[in-house]
């Protein structure tokens, strides 16, 4: 059985990666991801984890080394943040195109400029289209579980895609909290050894990364697109397996007090917890509000989302990144697109907040709900509101 421990979430993430018995970690330090890779290098240095820790000279090389390692057939992990993720950008597309099951923890942080080390989602929102499976954790327990789940899904021969587990920088990475850390036997029972469908092997030579001439590029992309779409049932299946093994349940879209709710907050990441507390207060005041939390961001679980918001009149979308030049943040823009063809679609209000780690409090969520309701009743389009901007 697992044991209940108090642990910094970064260390818990590293422990989970260690429990997955990875073969290679290639990483470069960047705040607020550093504690994850520091602890992994400790585990390797102490002989607790038999892996190669490749201390590369940049994130670009980190992802490149991960591609090499995974192509060689090794279980591979990396972690980064912000500028580091941006520096990996071009290689992220290649990792998914080559169908390599690399697992990466992204300690979400703002993108420069101005330079900021604090939490928001601008780093990962700039990487929406990389073709990776992407999940978001809300607390330390989820970081542990989603990390185990990521290896299980990514390496499944029906999937073979890289996977990013997002955890909020500082707001999660640097927080010490209680969680249950599974023991090795449990993890071994859940996660089998990695058996790559193909690898760089002199006994069966293959060429990887061929030139995508116009006659094949479209088909190559189609194959990746289908793979990402088809990963959905496997993702859900392995969450079920996780529940059976560890007793904790996960769904692509999580809901909180959505029954009879007229207004739903839509959140991703750790802010969901504060929103839930705010919702509790609002419910005490007689407001019909709830929370919809997007855990699976790619592939986007459209049906689950539609079911989760059924009956709601207003969505208050909490965007943690900007999409300059578009009248909404990235999440709201996508949701509006998805809702367009639906009858009886809710009004979508969009709030950009919590940029660069700026705290968003329960009372601010209460205000947002009021604003959203007012906008909805006016029927006028509500452009993206930046919350808390000092005029």
């Amino acid at each position: 059985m697992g044991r209940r421990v108090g642990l910094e979430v970064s260390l818990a993430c590293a422990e989970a990666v260690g429990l997955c018995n990875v073969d290679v970690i290639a990483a470069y330090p960047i705040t607020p991801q550093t504690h994850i890779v520091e602890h992994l290098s400790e585990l390797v240095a102490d002989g607790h984890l038999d892996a190669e820790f490749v201390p590369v000279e940049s994130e670009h090389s980190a992802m490149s080394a991960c591609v090499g390692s995974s192509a060689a057939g090794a279980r591979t992990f990396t972690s980064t943040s912000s500028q580091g993720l941006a520096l990996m950008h071009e290689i992220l597309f290649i990792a998914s195109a080559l169908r390599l099951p690399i697992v990466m923890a992204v300690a979400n942080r703002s993108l420069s400029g101005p330079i900021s080390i604090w939490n928001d989602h601008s780093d990962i929102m700039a990487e929406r289209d990389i073709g990776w499976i992407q999940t978001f954790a809300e607390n330390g327990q989820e970081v542990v579980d989603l990390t185990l789940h990521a290896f299980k899904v990514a390496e499944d021969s029906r999937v073979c895609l890289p996977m990013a587990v997002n955890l909020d920088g500082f707001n999660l990475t640097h927080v010490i909290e209680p969680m249950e850390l599974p023991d090795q036997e449990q993890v071994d029972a859940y996660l089998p050894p990695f058996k790559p469908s193909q690898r760089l092997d002199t006994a069966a030579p293959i060429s990887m990364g061929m030139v995508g001439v116009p006659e094949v590029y479209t088909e190559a992309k189609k194959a990746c697109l289908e793979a990402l779409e088809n990963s959905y049932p496997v993702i859900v299946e392995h969450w079920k397996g996780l529940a059976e093994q560890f007793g904790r349940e996960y769904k692509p879209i999580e809901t909180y007090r959505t029954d009879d709710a007229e207004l739903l907050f839509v959140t991703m990441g750790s802010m969901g917890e504060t929103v839930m507390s705010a919702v509790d207060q609002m419910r005490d005041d007689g407001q019909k509000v709830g929370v919809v939390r997007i855990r699976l961001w790619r592939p986007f679980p459209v049906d689950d989302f539609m079911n989760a918001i059924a009956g709601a009149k207003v969505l208050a979308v909490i965007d943690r990144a900007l999409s300059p030049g578009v009248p909404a943040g990235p999440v709201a823009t996508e949701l509006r697109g998805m809702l367009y063809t639906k009858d009886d679609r809710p009004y979508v209000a969009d709030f950009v907040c919590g940029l660069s780690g700026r705290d968003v409090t329960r009372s601010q969520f209460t205000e947002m709900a009021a604003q959203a309701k007012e906008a909805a009743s006016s029927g006028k389009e509500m452009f993206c509101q930046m919350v808390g901007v000092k005029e």
Partner: protein
Amino acid sequence: MIEVRFHGRGGQGAVTSAELMALAAIEEGKYAQAFPSFGPERRGAPVQAFLRISDEPIRLREKIYEPDVVLVLDPSLLATGGVKDGLKPDGTLVANSSKDVAAVRGECGFNGRTALVNASKVAEEELGVPITNTTMLGSLLKAAGLIDINSIKGPLEHRFGKIAEKNWKALNRAYDETVIEE
């Protein structure tokens, strides 16, 4: 739920204090959260750390705005402002100071329940260094309870190994020497 804010200077171990308390609370079966003020502050700069302890799961990721307890590791921080910000009127100030309650209240402007100990002296004598983070936990435990004093022993040993014993002793001495003025 009890919320505590720690004030220290970079390098004095304010974050470690919050961490040790959280770990001890979790070992007791409680729920806890400890986190630093996420900044680029370096050695010497005033820093804060935060602690939440509760019997229920904690579902909150805000910073702590209205702490029940404020703990000050470094006497020089008392007069720099910010110590009493948001501290509930019925809350508790726990401070390292060689001065008396009246003087401390004068410095920081908080007139509520105040617990004082000369932790710098205790740490200097017991540990040989003026690092007060573990010492002050004794004072915090006496003034605010929160957890059983013996629960801190495990995390202390895990964290400090061979010098845990000295820290334990300093902590206990601070516990004994803390004076509380309602």
